């Protein structure tokens, strides 16, 4: 058996290391936790084929209804990956999405023709 002080020291080091990791982790998590998007209808505005303000982030729990609207100045097809919902949008037009969040995970919506990601949808269990 190894001597007691060494064992205690090693144990303490390991526990401290784990704690430090945990703290940095929970901190970085709380920084980026976006508020749940249920109830709201987010509008993603597309200018010159790119989402204004970067890729939109939507977070739902399973079973809720995902709602968002795309206002686009270009004509393209909006593809909600994973759920595989496709809707065409005309230049200057808009298109609305409303579907139940039945799949857990992280999914992208793209302007399919341009391969431009406009939305990251997170569905938590």
């Amino acid at each position: 058996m190894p001597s007691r002080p060494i064992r205690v020291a090693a144990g303490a080091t390991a526990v401290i290391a784990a704690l430090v990791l945990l703290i940095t982790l929970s901190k970085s998590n709380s920084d980026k936790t976006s508020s749940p998007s249920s109830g709201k209808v987010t509008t993603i505005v597309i200018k010159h084929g790119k989402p204004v303000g970067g890729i939109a982030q939507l977070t739902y729990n399973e079973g809720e209804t995902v709602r968002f609207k795309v206002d686009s100045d270009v004509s393209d097809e909006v593809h909600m990956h994973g759920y595989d919902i496709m809707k065409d949008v005309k230049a200057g037009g808009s298109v609305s999405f409303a579907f139940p969040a039945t799949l857990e995970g992280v999914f992208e919506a793209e302007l399919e023709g341009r391969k431009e990601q406009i939305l990251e949808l997170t569905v938590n269990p």
Partner: protein
Amino acid sequence: MIGLALPVAHALVARKDLPIPAWLFAWGASLVLIVSFFALSALWQTPRLEDERWRPLGRRLSRALLSLPVRALCGAVGVALLGFSIYAGLHGTEAPDRNFALTFLFVTVWLGFPLFSVVFGDVFRPFNPWRAIGRTVGGAFAAIAGQRPAHLSYPSRLGRWPAAAGLLAVVWLEVVYGVNGGVAVGVEPHATAIAALVYSLYTLLMMTLFGVEKWCETGEVFSVYFGMFARLGIFELRDGRFGRRLPLTSSTRWATVPGSTAVVIASIASTSFDGAQEGAFKGAIVQVFEWLSDTGLSLTTSLRLANTIFMLLTFAGVGLVYLIGVRGMESVRGAPPLEKLRSGFAHTLIPIAFAYLVAHYFSLFVFQEQAQFGYLLSDPLGTGTTDLFGTASAGIDFKVLSANAIWYVQVGALVIGHVVGLTLAHDRATAYWGDYRQAARSQYWMLAVMVAFTCFGLYLLSVANS
């Protein structure tokens, strides 16, 4: 956002994993610590895994498995699949998720064979297309010339270093190369096919120079990489007989070839990097990318360079953690020379490398294999008009795995990999140190190394990709 990292895995699959929640991370990490300390005080005092206790299974089974028709068939299947992948890559669609080549090479083969190898033994060997070509050509040469082809003697110091470098190159192609104007798009089928052609030429050349079997043992990336995982399992074809051995035991002799340590470290590092690229390292990569592009480099070069730097840093970091552990063990009384310690504990990282693979790619594999055996089988070139088996319109059922199921598999894989690695290290220590007390003391260092890798793995899984 510029510099969005999108490695091939994510170009393929529409559903990405949710980060593991903080409470599960905490439980996983605590479990690792508790298990580790319990293991240290409760494990055995004399080596038990150094003896393989290999015993051959039925002679008839061996004869069937090694018969010429079976070998020829396996080799032909391997060559045909490689050839078809290259064809699909060159002539099929450039949409990564609709082309047979990407899913087959990067998911079915690259992620599938480590799993098959652990379960069934070194199954890549009979299907290895380059080995099949090399042996056929070698056989024809011998038949015509009446003598075996002569080879250069392979520099033994080089060992498995070419395989380690090749492993990094494959992953580099997969997660770094595919860039378009500062935006990572993942590698495309055409580029993958070209890379496969170049690699085939290189491999056949090396086989001509050094001999087929020699190159498969040391330099051929896929043989070495998949063969490493096969060492964990119980089945082996040895000296013309098919047999079984105690689990894990064969790994204890794996790292005797120089450069093996680099191979297993490259494996852990490349999986880590793939996981961290979009998560933990993302901010830093974007910063380096912006800094590089400010110096006047093109966006594409800057992003590739930034990712390459971080990939190499990950390799160096993983290697450093291991080397610190080895240094630490050297300080314990009665330690063997540093050289021996360095290669002597390398195999203890194989289970961790495997656990990293399972944790990072399990869900991708499950989802993408549905595509492989569904629409990619019926419409391999992604033309939209072919339907060979009537499955061209089949989709991927993302509901087969819930987020919770994925999390438990991920954490479970890391904890189990940790325990197995720890067990191997403990066993090796009892073999190296005659005195059990010193052996146990040396293992505080390996314990620290393993805890570091496992907690790092958990951490990578818990960081949200963005």
